[in-house]
């Protein structure tokens, strides 16, 4: 048998299937701290969170619900928020997505968009409140509103990107 060439019907590499989603989320979380950008306000959308939500909306059963714990820890290390913020909030988001995928039978594009936008708004708002517990709540929320709007508008783009990565993940040899 020719071991070098691809075999008909052989599934994609198991390692690639597992690593690609985790790697995209981790790289997206770490990317903002690697750009030479000194920001005066939260100007970039939370890239890691966007990929995290899109992967779960695209492949509901790919990850166990606790996957937000390690991925959130990684994001916390790079985002500047106290460790545990994203761990907690991302895991709660996973549970919310798991629940919604049981409740909504035929989830369409606009459902996905709405769910992702809502979760991003809630997570970013709560994270800002956790980071600055002493400051006035209204002012802290005002800081993240532009970021939330930008992120909500970027959800379809990230959905497409996730789809591209998913094609690569499942590509047969």
């Amino acid at each position: 048998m020719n071991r070098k060439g691809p075999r008909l019907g052989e599934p994609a590499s198991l390692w690639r299937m597992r690593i690609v989603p985790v790697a995209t989320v981790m790289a997206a979380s770490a990317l903002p701290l690697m750009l030479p950008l000194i920001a005066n306000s939260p100007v970039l959308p939370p890239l890691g969170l966007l990929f995290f939500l899109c992967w779960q909306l695209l492949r509901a059963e790919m990850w166990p619900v606790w996957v937000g714990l390690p991925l959130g820890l990684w994001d916390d290390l790079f985002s500047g928020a106290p460790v545990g913020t994203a761990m907690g909030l991302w895991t709660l988001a996973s549970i919310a997505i798991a629940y919604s995928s049981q409740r909504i039978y035929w989830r369409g594009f606009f459902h996905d968009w709405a769910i992702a936008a809502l979760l991003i708004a809630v997570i970013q708002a709560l994270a800002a409140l956790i980071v600055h517990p002493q400051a006035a709540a209204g002012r802290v929320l005002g800081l993240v509103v532009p970021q939330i709007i930008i992120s909500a508008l970027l959800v379809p783009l990230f959905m497409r990107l996730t789809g591209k990565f998913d094609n690569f993940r499942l590509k047969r040899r």
Partner: protein
Amino acid sequence: MVRPANRRPGQSRKAQYSLFVAYVIAVTGAVAGLLLALLSVVDPIGFAQLRVASQEIAAPIARASRSVIGSISGIDDNVGAYVSAGTQNRRLRKELADTRRQLVATSSLQEENRQLKALLKLQETDKTALANGYLLTSTSTSSKRIALLSIGRNLGVAAGQPVIGADGLIGRVLGAGPSVSQVLLMTDVDNIVPVRRARDGLPALASGRGNGDLDIRTLNIANNPFKPGDILVTSGTGGIYPPNIPVAIVVRRQDDGALARPLADPAKVDAVSVLRPYTPDNIELQGLPGPAAPSVPSPAPAAP
């Protein structure tokens, strides 16, 4: 997306248990994580080693991308500046004319000042930098304003040291790693700088708004003495920032103080200096006339 085939694990006990355990882990982990976050707000040094490790990972790539791209910074500022270019131009012309007049008046004072200082033999040793570096990158997705400084413990940087740019105060060092350190910028919501008005020494507190501006609150709330154009410098109270570092210029009066704009924009500053914290032992070390150290009473001879 089509609904996933079947989330219920069926009759298999093992599958049921593993799904249940996954939910238990998730819920406990989420609650523990949020508690941890609330705790580490109280104790910001927690998980310092992990954070240092992550920054050491990010720093080389940030260095490389900085050298390739240069510094992309102040996106929001650029957009705002474009919108308000016309009014700004008019205002700047007026300011320039005013400043020219003031400059002429000041130059004679400066010369006089220099002579007086020479007479008094005052040494300006308090501004000597401990180390110099540049800001590599900053957090840009969360509401925390932390920047990475290109030097760390290898050059003597430690937590609590003030960081200044050419134009004024940038922030203070939050923690130092082997080769990078994190700087809490002055514009962070949690960073409070004791300042005074340069003109008359009116004491006030500057706290960040999180969007690049500062809130100035005076310590006596009876009246609101600020006027647009007032320059604020550090007062040296509180023991971190040495006195007389330029901090901000008042832009607008507010109900409870004033809105000020930092003189040194960390997005535009290139090189920064790390200073010694303004603590009594450092002041003595530099031979400055600092506050007198409390005299230690000699131990009384024990009664027989």
